[in-house]
C-alpha cells in the first residue's frame, strides 16, 4: 500500500471515529433528557416527608408509605379495571386485526379495494367525534359508570379491524405460494394462518399485541367520559389524574407518582422482553423476518 493511500485510510478512519463519537454523545444527551421525567417520578414516589409537590428532586426521607397508602384507596380497583380492559382488548383486537389482515392480504373478493379505501378514509376522522353518540349508546346499554369496563372494551375493540395496515403489509411480503402449498397439503385457511403465516410473522404479532394493549392501558379521554365520575368505573389514568386537582394534590401527589410507577411497570417489563421483536415489527415491511 502506498503512503498516500495509507494516509487517506487513516484520515477516513479518524473522521469516522469523530462522527461516531459525536453521534454517541448526542444520543446519550437525548436519552438523559428523555429519562429525567421517569427518574423524577420514581424518586418522588419514595418521598415520605411531604405528600405534595415540592421544589426538589431527591427525597429527604425515603420510604414506601406512598405505596401502602395507594392500596387503601380505589387504586387497586382502577388498576384491575384497566388491566382487564387492556388484556381483553389486546386479545380480541389481535385476533381481529390478524384475521382482517390475512383476509385482505390473501383473499380477492369484490368489494376488497373499496372496503380498504373506505376504512382508510374512516380512519382519518378523529375518534373524538364519535364520543357523544358513543356515550349515549353505551348509557342506553347500561355500560357506563360502574359498568364502564365492558363498555370500554366494546369501544376499543369495535374499530380494531381498521388497524390492519401494518400487518397486512407484512403478510403481503410472504409469498402466496406458501399458502398454496399448504392448501394442497390439506390445510384449511385457519390452519394456514395459524401454522404458516403467524409463525413467519412473529414480530408483527407481537407488535399487534403490544399496540392493542397499550391503547386501553394509557387511555384517558374515553375512559373519563364513560366512567363519568364514578370511582368504581375509572381506569388508572382517570383515577390518578383526579388526584392532581387543587383539593387533593397536596395530599396525594406522591401517591400519584407511586401509581404512575406501578402503571409503567408491566409495560416496561413487556417491552424489555419483546423489544427485539417490536423493532423488527415496526420496520417490518422493509426487512423480512
Amino acid at each position, binding site marked *: 500500500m502506498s503512503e498516500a493511500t495509507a494516509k487517506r485510510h487513516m484520515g477516513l478512519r479518524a473522521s469516522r471515529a469523530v462522527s461516531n463519537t459525536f453521534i454517541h454523545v448526542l444520543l446519550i444527551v437525548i436519552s438523559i433528557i428523555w429519562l429525567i421525567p421517569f427518574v423524577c417520578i420514581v424518586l418522588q414516589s419514595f418521598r415520605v416527608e411531604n405528600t405534595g409537590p415540592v421544589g426538589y428532586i431527591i427525597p429527604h426521607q425515603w420510604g414506601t408509605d406512598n405505596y401502602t397508602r395507594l392500596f387503601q384507596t380505589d387504586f387497586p380497583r382502577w388498576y384491575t379495571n384497566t388491566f382487564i380492559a387492556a388484556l381483553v382488548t389486546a386479545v380480541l383486537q389481535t385476533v381481529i386485526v390478524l384475521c382482517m389482515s390475512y383476509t385482505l392480504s390473501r383473499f380477492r373478493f369484490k368489494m376488497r379495494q373499496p372496503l380498504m379505501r373506505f376504512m382508510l378514509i374512516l380512519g382519518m376522522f378523529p375518534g373524538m367525534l364519535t364520543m357523544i353518540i358513543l356515550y349515549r349508546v353505551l348509557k342506553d346499554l347500561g355500560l357506563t359508570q360502574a359498568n364502564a369496563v365492558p363498555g370500554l372494551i366494546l369501544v376499543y375493540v369495535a374499530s380494531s379491524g381498521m388497524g390492519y395496515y401494518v400487518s397486512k403489509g407484512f403478510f403481503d411480503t410472504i409469498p402466496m*405460494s406458501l399458502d398454496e*402449498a399448504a392448501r394442497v397439503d390439506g390445510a384449511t385457511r385457519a390452519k394456514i394462518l395459524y401454522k404458516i403465516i403467524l409463525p413467519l410473522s412473529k414480530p408483527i404479532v407481537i407488535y399487534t399485541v403490544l399496540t392493542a394493549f397499550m391503547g386501553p392501558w394509557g387511555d384517558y379521554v374515553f375512559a373519563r367520559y364513560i366512567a363519568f365520575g364514578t370511582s368504581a368505573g375509572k381506569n388508572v389514568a382517570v383515577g390518578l389524574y383526579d388526584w392532581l386537582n387543587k383539593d387533593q394534590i397536596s395530599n396525594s401527589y406522591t401517591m400519584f407518582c407511586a401509581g404512575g410507577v406501578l402503571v409503567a411497570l408491566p409495560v416496561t417489563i413487556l417491552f424489555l422482553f419483546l423489544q427485539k421483536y417490536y423493532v423488527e415489527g415496526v420496520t417490518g415491511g422493509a426487512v423480512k423476518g
Partner: protein
Amino acid sequence: MASVKLTDVKKVYDNKVTAVHDFNLEIQDKEFIVFVGPSGCGKSTTLRMIAGLEDISGGTLEIDGQVVNDLQPKDRDIAMVFQNYALYPHMTVYDNIAFSLRLKKVPEDEVYERVTNAAQILGITEYLTRKPRALSGGQRQRVAIGRAMVRNAKVFLMDEPLSNLDAKLRNQMRAEIIQLRQKLETTFIYVTHDQTEAMTLGDRIVIMRDGIIEQVGTPQEVFDTPVNLFVAGFIGSPQMNFLKASLIRTGDSFSVSLLGVNLALNPDQNEVLTRKGIGSQEVILGIRPEHTAVLFEPDQNAIECTIDVYEMMGSELHLHLTDQNSDRIIVRLPTIDLTREQRQHLSFGNRLFISFPAKVMHLFDPETEKSLIDG
C-alpha cells in the same frame, strides 16, 4: 393413482383475459403427461385449475370419474411441486415433509417412517434437521418433491420444477424424476416450457399455444407428425427448417418444387393428398436439421446453399446455410465420416448441396398453417 378428465375447461381471469380456451383432455391412470408451450400459453393456469388453486370458469374437471370443480385443493387429494419450491421457511426439512401427514393426523411413528423413507429415496437424509434456508437449490427441490411424495396422492402436479436449477443439475434431476416416476406409479402432470424435458419425460405431450391445445401425442408422434407449423417449429432442436415451395399435382402423384429442384413424394403421401383432394398449391416445406443429407458435389435433386455459420458441437456440426431464396437452413452433420478435404471445405461462403428423401418432408398450408399430410 387416478385418471383425470378435462372437458371444455376454460379460464377467464378477472381482467377478462381468457387464459385457457375449451381444454379437452383425458389423462389415464399412471400416465405421465407434460404440458409444454411458450411462456404465457396457459400451462400453469391449467395446472392450477386441476390443483384447485384457480376457479374453473367453465367446463368440468373430473378426477377418478368424480367432478371436482368445486372441491377445495385439500379435498382433491393431489400433490404439487411449485416452481419456487414454496418450502415453509420456519420449519425443518423433516417438518416440511411431515406437514401434510400431520394435518391428516397420521400417527407420529408412521410419519417418521414415511418421511425418512422419502428422504432416503431422494438422498436428503442428512439435511432433515436443517431449515430450507440452509439448503442449495437442488436440495430444496428434492425436499419439495419429498413433500409431495409422502402424500401418496392421486395425482402428482409439477410446475416447471427444474427451471431454477443450472443445466447440469437439471439433467440429473430429470433422470431422478424418471426413476421416481417408476417408483411412485401415480399419475403425473408436468408443466415445462422446455421441449427437451417434455420429450424425455412425457408418455404423452400436450403442446399449447395461447390457451389452446395444438396437439396431443406421444413424443414420437408429435416429433414425426406435427399437425401444424407451430408444433413443427416448437418440437425438436435445432428447430425445423421452413422453406417456401410449390406442390404440383400430376394425376394422382405429387411433387414438391423449389429452387429449381423437383422432388417426388412417396406413394403414402400421394395417397393422403389425393384422398384429401388437394391440388397444386403453394406450400411450406418443413425439414428437420437431422434429416438432411449434405453433399459436396452438385446433384439434380439437391439444393444449392452457401455456408453462413459453422458450429462445432463435438460429434456433429451445425451448419447455418442460406439458399438462393435467402431462406435460412440449419443442418446437422455428423463429423465422424468427414474427410480432411471436406472439413476444409466447410467454411464461410463456400457452396454446399443438401437433399432429403420424401419421407422426411412435412408440408404445411401457408394460409391455415395446418399440415397437409400429417394429422
